[in-house]
């Protein structure tokens, strides 16, 4: 499979087909049993840290600390990758509808709000490649529409996205290339 700039790849398949495994292999979290994963012509294992800095991975878990506030979670989660200002965090919280949750610990957020916060981390990371595993899980209709719009902006900027989902993602202005597993 290939993912080019401005392209969204939809990884589909029944439960247990290996969608998550494929995405974890692409993210370098699992070694490939066969074949190679390359980024811009270089195997990802040649300089994994440099590769990791170029993509943002959203897995099944939201990767939030339940004892940290929404603001602190983004400050750390994004801050590890690039310096981030409070204004940027406030902007993305407003965009994801979480302004009211800024000072709330993640433990009190609903599953959908946690997913929105995880999406906010991906939005702020400014990575050219997004690897998203079931990103629409727990999101309400407005959340799905927000995320689809955000993915479209990522593609408009020349970024790429690889999405594992059961439903074909409806990304405005972009047609997804489907990769069916199993």
């Amino acid at each position, binding site marked *: 499979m290939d993912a080019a700039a401005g392209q969204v790849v939809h990884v589909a398949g029944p439960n247990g087909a290996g969608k998550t495994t494929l995405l974890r292999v692409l*993210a*370098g*979290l*699992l*070694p490939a049993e066969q074949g190679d994963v390359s980024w811009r012509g270089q195997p990802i294992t040649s300089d994994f*840290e*440099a590769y*990791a*800095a*170029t*993509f*943002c*991975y959203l*897995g*099944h*878990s*939201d*990767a*939030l*600390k*339940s*004892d*940290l506030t929404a603001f*602190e979670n983004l*400050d*750390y*989660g994004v*801050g*590890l*990758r*690039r*310096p981030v200002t409070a204004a940027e965090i406030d902007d993305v919280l407003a965009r994801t509808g979480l302004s009211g949750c800024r000072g709330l610990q993640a433990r009190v957020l609903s599953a959908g709000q946690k997913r929105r916060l995880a999406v906010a981390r991906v939005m702020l990371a*400014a990575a050219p490649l997004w690897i998203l595993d079931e990103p629409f899980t727990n999101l309400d209709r407005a959340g799905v529409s927000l995320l689809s719009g955000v993915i479209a902006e990522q593609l408009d900027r020349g970024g790429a996205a690889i999405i594992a989902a059961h439903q074909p993602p409806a990304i405005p202005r972009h047609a997804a290339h489907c990769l069916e597993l199993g």
Partner: protein
Amino acid sequence: MPATTVWQAMSLTYQRDLVLAFRRWEQVAQPVVFFLMVTTLVPLALSPELNELRQIAGGVLWIAALLAALLGLEFLYRADHADGTLEQMLLSGQPLALLAIAKTAAHWTACGLPLVLVSPLLAVSLGVLPGALGTLMLSLALGTGILSALGAVGAALTLGLRRGNLLLSLLVLPLTMPALIFGARAVDMAVHGEVARGPMLLLAAMCVLSLTLAPLAVSAALRISLE
């Protein structure tokens, strides 16, 4: 867009772990309470005679401090693994070994340093004279540092196991025996009015060695555990 420097990433990780530790204050209090309880029970079980207690104070304080510091080790990586933040650390583009140093430093600040700070109080109750308190505190600071560094390797190795706590103790405690031997000896020498320079230098060398090599082992063990 500029990337976060390694120092900024380490500082962020250190601060985050301290904030998390103090929001779960029982994790910070538990080792201190254990340390207090064990050292308070010794005079009750053996003898209230200060001259007798003074003879064994170094060993008692060191054993109690090591076991107390062991209590918090299990939480070092387990929570980060469970909520997915460890994965994000690995994928942040920052060197995992250096983030591991920051996490070890935060663990020592939250679990080791409080033990060092309360140790003079307990030492005086065991009949240790004020002249030996400096050696005691410095030796415990180095000893808990060694335990935090070696314990991080054990915590990373046992991350994928469901009941890793027992294995963690079995892995880590034997490795800390040299530190226990020289640390308790240093305190004993100071209690008897001798200069404990030799064992203290050996303890410092062990601390430097474990702080230098352990993060590399932690990084490798975490990568294996995350597969």
